[in-house]
């Protein structure tokens, strides 16, 4: 064959395989409101940056008539590309080819790109759209899943791993996303569950729709499995691209710096907050008042909204925010909010992102359901995560910091580097009413007018203890600051801690209360 001819032959071969499952299957994919695997990669990567590997891989299955079946690319596309110039490794399951089912070679392609990502120390993005294990390939499919999980675990904390659920992701397949750092879901398209509605119906007699069992909203709101919820695939890709700008390529680097921008917020920060500690406000407004360009990128917005987590920039550098949200459940810590914050803190710590904690919370949520759901074990995760973290840790106490919550929210005692408090901070073992009722129990009981005495004693306690000065007198707080100084001091703290170094005892790994 002449060179010219062989080039034409290559083009033909490529074109054939790139059609995936063929026109009919693509039509079906489109009818489901989904983009094809190839369109998804194009939408996500910088223009013309994607380079495909293993286009010509073929499956090896011989049983059940599989030897007569041609599955282009074995149902998955892998390769490398860039997002805003940052290199990424990615795979996208192609539902048009045998329903994106995972067989041996399909899994080999995925593990190949995972190994590549880990070797090159660049983020991995996996687009999931698959009917699950390829039954005809039996235990080889299971082996494939296991090898993916193993690599997810090895890569954890070394490179950022992102999972995008753009179709079904059921059974064993769900555990790869579950092991990764950020899971993206799209309304009406994403479906994740261990056992589907039909099995649940036959085995247990429970009737539930696929959407209610494991739709995007369920995972974004109820289970906490998803980190980002989008209404369309395009919105989802925009979210992924934005996330990539906030995180580093790997654990040996820092996230990219951007030109510093002042906040768009021009008012007085103290005006954002009611002085009565019982009145709510939206903590995200405070975050927006201090971050560059007032741009706050929230994570897990819909799940456990009593704590707010996300990325912002201070002087152009990425920081992770963890903030109590007085607007929801008074900002308490509970099972879900502890899980949410702890995992985020560990991500920030693994990837050299300083953590800013904004505190305003009355403590842990009381209740039988919380105690029985293991609020002790889950609540301990946040203590563990803060104590373990060696990145710069900064806390600003805005109003309430009571009891166990005060300790948990990155207190000096857990290793905070900078502890600042507004003059409105109340750092105490509990709220004034509760404390006065216990400390002055006798005086109140014996008084002629107990109600009046209680009021008097509560006031007395408030004056003496419901302030930041008792803690400041012990050095537990470094500085009591004016709210308007907050941004300036946060920038300063980030600047001072640029070369923070901490040595810890050698160990294989800790044992957090998973």
């Amino acid at each position: 064959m002449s060179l010219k001819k062989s080039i034409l032959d290559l083009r033909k071969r490529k074109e054939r395989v790139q059609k995936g499952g063929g026109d009919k299957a693509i039509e079906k994919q489109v009818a489901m409101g989904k983009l094809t695997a190839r369109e998804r990669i194009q939408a996500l990567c910088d223009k013309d940056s994607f380079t495909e590997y293993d286009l010509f891989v073929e499956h090896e299955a011989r049983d059940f008539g599989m030897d007569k079946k041609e599955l282009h690319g074995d149902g998955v596309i892998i390769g490398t590309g860039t997002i805003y110039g940052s290199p990424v490794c990615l795979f996208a399951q192609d539902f048009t080819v045998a329903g994106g089912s995972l067989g041996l070679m399909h899994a080999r392609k995925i593990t190949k790109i995972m190994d590549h990502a880990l070797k090159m120390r660049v983020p991995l993005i996996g687009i999931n759209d698959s009917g699950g294990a390829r039954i005809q390939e039996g235990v080889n499919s299971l082996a494939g899943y296991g090898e993916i999980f193993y690599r997810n675990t090895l890569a954890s904390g070394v490179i950022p791993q992102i999972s995008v659920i753009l179709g079904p992701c059921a059974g064993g397949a769900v555990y790869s996303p579950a092991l990764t750092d950020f899971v993206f879901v799209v309304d009406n398209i994403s479906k994740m569950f261990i056992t589907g509605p039909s099995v649940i119906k036959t085995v247990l007699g429970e009737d539930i729709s696929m959407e209610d069992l494991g739709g995007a909203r369920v995972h974004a709101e109820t289970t906490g499995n998803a980190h980002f919820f989008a209404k369309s695939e395009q919105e989802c890709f925009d979210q992924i691209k934005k996330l990539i700008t906030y995180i580093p390529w790997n654990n040996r680097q820092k996230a990219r710096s951007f030109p510093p921008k002042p906040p768009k917020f021009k008012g007085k920060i103290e005006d954002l907050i009611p002085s009565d500690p019982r009145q709510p406000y939206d903590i995200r407004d405070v975050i927006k008042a201090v971050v560059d360009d007032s741009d706050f990128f929230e994570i897990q917005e819909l799940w456990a909204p009593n704590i707010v987590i996300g990325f912002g920039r201070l002087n152009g550098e990425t920081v992770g925010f963890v903030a109590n949200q007085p607007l929801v459940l008074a900002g308490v810590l509970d099972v879900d909010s502890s899980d949410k914050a702890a995992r985020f803190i560990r991500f920030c710590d693994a990837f050299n992102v300083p953590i800013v904690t904004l505190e305003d919370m009355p403590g842990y949520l009381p209740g039988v359901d919380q105690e029985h759901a293991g609020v002790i074990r889950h609540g301990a995760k946040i203590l563990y995560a803060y104590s373990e973290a060696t990145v710069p840790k900064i806390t600003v106490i805005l109003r309430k910091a009571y009891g166990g919550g005060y300790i948990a929210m990155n207190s000096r005692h857990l290793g905070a580097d900078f502890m600042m408090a507004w003059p409105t901070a109340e750092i105490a073992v509990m709220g004034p009413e509760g404390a006065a009722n216990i400390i002055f129990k006798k005086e109140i009981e014996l008084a002629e007018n107990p109600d009046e005495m209680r009021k008097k004693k509560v006031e007395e306690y408030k004056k003496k203890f419901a302030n930041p000065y008792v803690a400041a007198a012990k050095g537990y707080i470094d500085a009591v600051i004016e709210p308007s100084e907050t941004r300036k001091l946060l920038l300063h703290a980030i600047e001072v801690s640029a070369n923070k170094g901490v040595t810890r005892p050698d160990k294989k790994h800790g044992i957090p209360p998973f």
Partner: protein
Amino acid sequence: MFNVMAKKFDGLIDFPILSMKYRTLVTKKFLNRKKYEVPNMKHVKSYIPGTVIKVMAKRGKKLKKGDTMLILEAMKMRNKIIMPFDGKIKVVHVKAGEMIPKDFLMVEIE
């Protein structure tokens, strides 16, 4: 956009934590949480959803602790549901072949 003092939040409630009440919103999950009930030892409930295969307990029958009251098949296992203590059966709420959810009241003991 940032004029928060004028911001009104819909659906605020008084939320008690210890002796303080906070104005705040509550989540769906919080509203749907299961209220705790003191367990009644005389009420035998299913601990797993499944299918009743066989019922040995009959109304008025006296059974000893450890006697099998019924067989509940769940997750391909046939589970013996046994008497928690010596007693007399007051009501049997299930029949053989019936599919029941979790926490379903199966038998009442006198």
